[in-house]
């Protein structure tokens, strides 16, 4: 993560928001890892 990108993000988000965004990114990546590996079905495909 380059400094200029981080600084730009700092201007947009508060400390807590930044952490939350980081966790959001982490979480979706974790879900994706899980879903891709085990070929989990999206809810759309299940009609749910």
């Amino acid at each position: 993560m380059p400094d200029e990108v981080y600084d730009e993000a700092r201007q947009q988000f508060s400390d807590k928001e930044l952490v939350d965004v980081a966790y959001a990114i982490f979480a979706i990546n974790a879900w994706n890892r899980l879903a891709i590996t085990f070929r989990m079905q999206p809810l759309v495909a299940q009609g749910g």
Partner: protein
Amino acid sequence: MYSSEATMPTAAMPRDASGPAQLRSLYPRHGRDARARGRAFMPRSHEPGRTREVSPAASSDMTPAAERAAAAGGAAGIVRRAATCAGQAHHDHGRRVSAERLFAAASPRRFRHGLCAVGRDPLAAAGPAADDRTGRARASSSRRAPAHLLAENMSATEPARILAGLRRRRGRDAHDLSLTIFRKICKGARIMTTRLNAKAIAPDAYNALRGLQNYIDACGIEKPLIELIKVRASQINRLRLLHRHAHGRCREGRRKPGAAAPVERLARDRSLHARASAPRSP
């Protein structure tokens, strides 16, 4: 099971099949159809060309049709007969029989099942695949494993294999229904099956992640922004099913007007996909 040509379904239906009476005439070996063709399926010992050469006297016993076949030439005659017969499997006493009826007659239950019915004969019978089939191959193929055995062993990869076989054999007489089932298989070949239920196997880890997600959903970041983050992070990680993923997000977002639009636009932006396929960001 489709390792060799001989095991593939052919025009010849199983001899011991105990179907309804009206189905008998669909068997090209027997009944009026066979007689009308001048005993096309005579035993090999009566094979015209060979008999005439070995014993000229025996030729007087041959039927006129057999003599005509002999004139056409031995082996070539057999090949032509097989092809002819394959075509006639679609006809019942001169009337055209729909592939639908053939399927239904073969096994009503499996006809409904669609996929399983493909293991049956009509599609194979329709194709010109019999052109290169000898009498010997026909005999062995009539003893092939019944379709229901194929069907019950159907796995996730089976549609793709059937599709490959179907592509080879689909011929000029292929009926509309075969196309329907063909499409059904095409669709089936793309079906993705879940490998493991991660939630059931390790519920604690799953619930921990779920807890994190619950925190994120409630942490105060606007819902549309969270969806944007999901879509963008997935793009960067080259998630292939993104559009479907995003579609679900959009549908979810429709309850709140305006929330879905940016997500959908982002998901459909091809340039973003192009950028996402660049080397991973740190």
